[in-house]
C-alpha cells in the first residue's frame, strides 16, 4: 500500500504540475462560470425570458417578441387581402409585438419583402387560402402556423356572423379550461432526462480521455525503457494501481472543479436564468453522489484495462490499436445507456446497471430517473468494486508480462494465453 501511495503521489504531481492540465481546468471552469453569470450583466431576455434592468429582474418569461417589442422597434409584416377577411387588429395580437400593414398590391408586398423592409408578407387569396412570402426562411420560422390560426379565427368569425351565432360562447365551449394538479411521487423523468444524458456523456469522455492517457503513459515507460528500472524497484501492482488511481484523482479534481464552478454559478444565477437550464444544471445531490461513486468506479475499472493495453505495445502510435477493442466496448455501452434512458425501468437497463462494464453510467441514470431499490444500488456497487479489484490484478499481471516484450504489439488473446501458461 505504501508503494502505491508513492507511485500515486509521483504520478499525481505530474498531472497537477502540468501547465496544460492546470490551464485547461482553470480556463474551462472560469468560462463555464462566466457564461452563467452573463444574465446578471447582459440583457438576455430574448433567450431567458427574464429581463434584467439595473440588476433587478423584470417580466415573467411570457412572450419573447413582446419584450423586444416594448423595448425596441417592432418587426413589420405586410398582408394583401384579396378576400376581404383579414382583421388587422387581431393579427397584431396573434403575432405579438409586431406591426402589420396592408400592402397596395401583391407586387408591392413582394418588393418590400425582397428589399427586407418587411420580415414577411401574406397574400390572402380566399377565406381559406393564402400565399406566404419570406426572404430567408429560418429553421424556427412558424409564421405560417400562426397565420393559419389567424385565418381559422377569421373564418369562424365570418361563419358565426353569417349564421347569427355567438363566437364567444362556442369558443368557451370548445376551449373549456382544465385544471391539473400534478403530484410526482418518485422521479420526474422528463426533467431529469437531460442532466442524466449529459452526465453519461461526461463519464464516457472521462473514461476514454483519461484511459487513453494512462495507456500512453505506460507505453511511454516501455518506449523510454524506464519500465525495467521500475519493475525491479517495486511490484507491478503498486505501479499500475498508483498510476490508475492518480489518473482517477486528477480526473475527479478536474471534473469536480469544472462541474462545481458551473453548477454553483448556475445555482447563484438561477433566478436570472428563469430556471431554464434546470434540466441540465439543477442536479440533485443524491444523483451527483451516485454519479461520483459509479463514475469513479467505471473509470477505475476501465483505467486498469487501459494500463494493461498500454503495456502490450512498445510505441505510443500503437496504443490506439491495442486499446481499440476496449474502445468498442465503451462505445457500445455508451450508446446503449443513452438509448435506454428512454426506457429507464425496462429490463435492458436493469441488466446493464448490474454489469461492471456498464453500471458506471446506467445505475446512476436509474437512480436519477427510475425506480431502484437501495439493495440494487449496493449490489451493483459491490459487483463493480469486486470487478475493479479483478481488473486491477489482471491488468497488473498483463502489465508485468508485457514489461520487457518489445517489438510488435502483443495481441490480448496471446497475452492471456501466455498468462495462463505462466501459472
Amino acid at each position, binding site marked *: 500500500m505504501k508503494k502505491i501511495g508513492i*507511485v500515486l503521489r*509521483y504520478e499525481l504531481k505530474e498531472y497537477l504540475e502540468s501547465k496544460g492540465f492546470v490551464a485547461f481546468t482553470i480556463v474551462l471552469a472560469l468560462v463555464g462560470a462566466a457564461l452563467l453569470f452573463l444574465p446578471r450583466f447582459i440583457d438576455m431576455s430574448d433567450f431567458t425570458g427574464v429581463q434584467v434592468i439595473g440588476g433587478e429582474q423584470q417580466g415573467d418569461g411570457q412572450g419573447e417578441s413582446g419584450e423586444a417589442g416594448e423595448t425596441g422597434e417592432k418587426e413589420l409584416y405586410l398582408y394583401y387581402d384579396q378576400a376581404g377577411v383579414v382583421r388587422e387588429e387581431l393579427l397584431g395580437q396573434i403575432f405579438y409585438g409586431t406591426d402589420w400593414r396592408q400592402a397596395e398590391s401583391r407586387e408591392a408586398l413582394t418588393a418590400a419583402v425582397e428589399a427586407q423592409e418587411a420580415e414577411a408578407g401574406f397574400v390572402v387569396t380566399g377565406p381559406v387560402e393564402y400565399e406566404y412570402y419570406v426572404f430567408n426562411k429560418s429553421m424556427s420560422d412558424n409564421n405560417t402556423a400562426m397565420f393559419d390560426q389567424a385565418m381559422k379565427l377569421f373564418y369562424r368569425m365570418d361563419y358565426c356572423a353569417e349564421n347569427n351565432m355567438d363566437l364567444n360562447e362556442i369558443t368557451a365551449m370548445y376551449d373549456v379550461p382544465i385544471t391539473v394538479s400534478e403530484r410526482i411521487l418518485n422521479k420526474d423523468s422528463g426533467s431529469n432526462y437531460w442532466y442524466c444524458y449529459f452526465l453519461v456523456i461526461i463519464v464516457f469522455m472521462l473514461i476514454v480521455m483519461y484511459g487513453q492517457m494512462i495507456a500512453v503513459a505506460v507505453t511511454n*515507460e516501455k518506449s*523510454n*525503457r524506464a519500465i*525495467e*528500472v521500475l519493475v*525491479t524497484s517495486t511490484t507491478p501492482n503498486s505501479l499500475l494501481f498508483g498510476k490508475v488511481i492518480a489518473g482517477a484523482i486528477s480526473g475527479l479534481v478536474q471534473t469536480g472543479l469544472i462541474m462545481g464552478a458551473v453548477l454553483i454559478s448556475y445555482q447563484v444565477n438561477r433566478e436570472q436564468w428563469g430556471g431554464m437550464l434546470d434540466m441540465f444544471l439543477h442536479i440533485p445531490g443524491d444523483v451527483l453522489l451516485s454519479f461520483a461513486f459509479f463514475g469513479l468506479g467505471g473509470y477505475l475499472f476501465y483505467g486498469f484495462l487501459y494500463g494493461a493495453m498500454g503495456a502490450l505495445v512498445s510505441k505510443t502510435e500503437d496504443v490506439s490499436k491495442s486499446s481499440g477493442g476496449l474502445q468498442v466496448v465503451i462505445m457500445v455501452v455508451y450508446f446503449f445507456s443513452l438509448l435506454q434512458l428512454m426506457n429507464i425501468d425496462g429490463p435492458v437497463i436493469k441488466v446493464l446497471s448490474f454489469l461492471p462494464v456498464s453500471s458506471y453510467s446506467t445505475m446512476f441514470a436509474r437512480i436519477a430517473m427510475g425506480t431502484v431499490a437501495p439493495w440494487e444500488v449496493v449490489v451493483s456497487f459491490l459487483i463493480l468494486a469486486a470487478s475493479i479489484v479483478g481488473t486491477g490484478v489482471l491488468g497488473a499481471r498483463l502489465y508485468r508480462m508485457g514489461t*520487457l516484450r518489445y517489438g510488435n504489439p502483443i495481441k490480448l488473446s496471446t497475452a492471456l494465453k501466455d498468462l495462463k501458461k505462466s501459472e
Partner: protein
Amino acid sequence: MKLEVKNIRKSFGEKEVLHGVSFQVESGRALGLLGRNGAGKTTTIRILMDVFHANSGEILLDGKKFVPSNHRIGYLPEERGLYPKRTVLDQMIFLARLRGMNTGEARENAKKWLARLEVSEYETRKLETLSKGNQQKVQLAATLVTNPDIVILDEPFSGLDPVNSQILKDVVNELIADRRLVIFSSHQMSYVEEFCDNIAIINQGEVVLAGELREIKKDYGRNRLMLSAENYDQNRLAEKVEQEFGDLVSISGRKKEFLILELTEKGSRRKVMERLAGSDIEVERFGGYAPSLNDIFVAKVGEEE
C-alpha cells in the same frame, strides 16, 4: 554475503536459452559476467532481479533463497531509461522511495550520488535536456541512490566517453573497496580485467569458464612463453622456431610485438633458453606469457564454437 547461482535453466517458448548457469560471488569482490552478444548474460541478470522466472535452478544468498525485493539492490539494466520529462532529482527521490527509503534519506543520497558523479548542476533539469553521457551518469546515480549492498551493472560502460568511463571506474572501485557485492556484465574485457576478481564466461547459455581471474590467467599462461628477436622479423622468427625448436615448442599465437609459444611435452623453459643461447637469435624479449582476459575469452569462446 555470498550469492550463489546454481544450475539456472530458462526457456522462452520451446527454446532453452540458459542451460544450467552457475557461479558465485562474495561481498568485497566483483564478478565479471562475460559473453558475446546474445550469450545469455542479460537473461541471467534479469533472472537474478526477478524480472524473468527461471524454469529450474536456484539462487541463494548466504545459503537462503534470494528474494531481490528483500534487499537493497542497485541494478543498472542494459536497456537504460528513466523519465525524460521529469527533473533529475525528483525521479531519483522517487526511485529511492520505491526501494524503501524515506524522503529525507532519499533526497540526501540522491544529492550525494549526483555530486559524486559530477552532475549536481543538473538536478533541477529535465532528464531529456542532458547530454547522453550525463544521462548515463544520472542513471548510474539512480542505481546507487539507496547505497545498495548488491550492485548489478549490465554493460555499464556502453556509451560512456573516456572521461566518464574513468569516473565510473573509480566509483566501481570504491564500491568494491566498500565491501559491496558487485556483478558486472560486459563484453569489454579491459574493464572486467580491471575490477573483477572472479569471472564467468557464458557462451550460448552455458558457463564455459568460471573462477578466480588470477588463477585462470595462471592456468592459461602456465605452458606459454613469449619470444621476439632483434635480428628476425616475426615471420622469419616463426619459421626458425618451427624448424629448430619444433620439438620443444609450438606457435600458439602472435601478438604485434612477439610470438606466443606453447611448450610441448618434451619442452621446458630451461631447454628453450639453452637452445636459444646456442642459436643466432638475438633475443629481444623472452619470458613467461601472461594471457590477457581477451585472449582467454577468444580462446574459450572460440573453442566452444
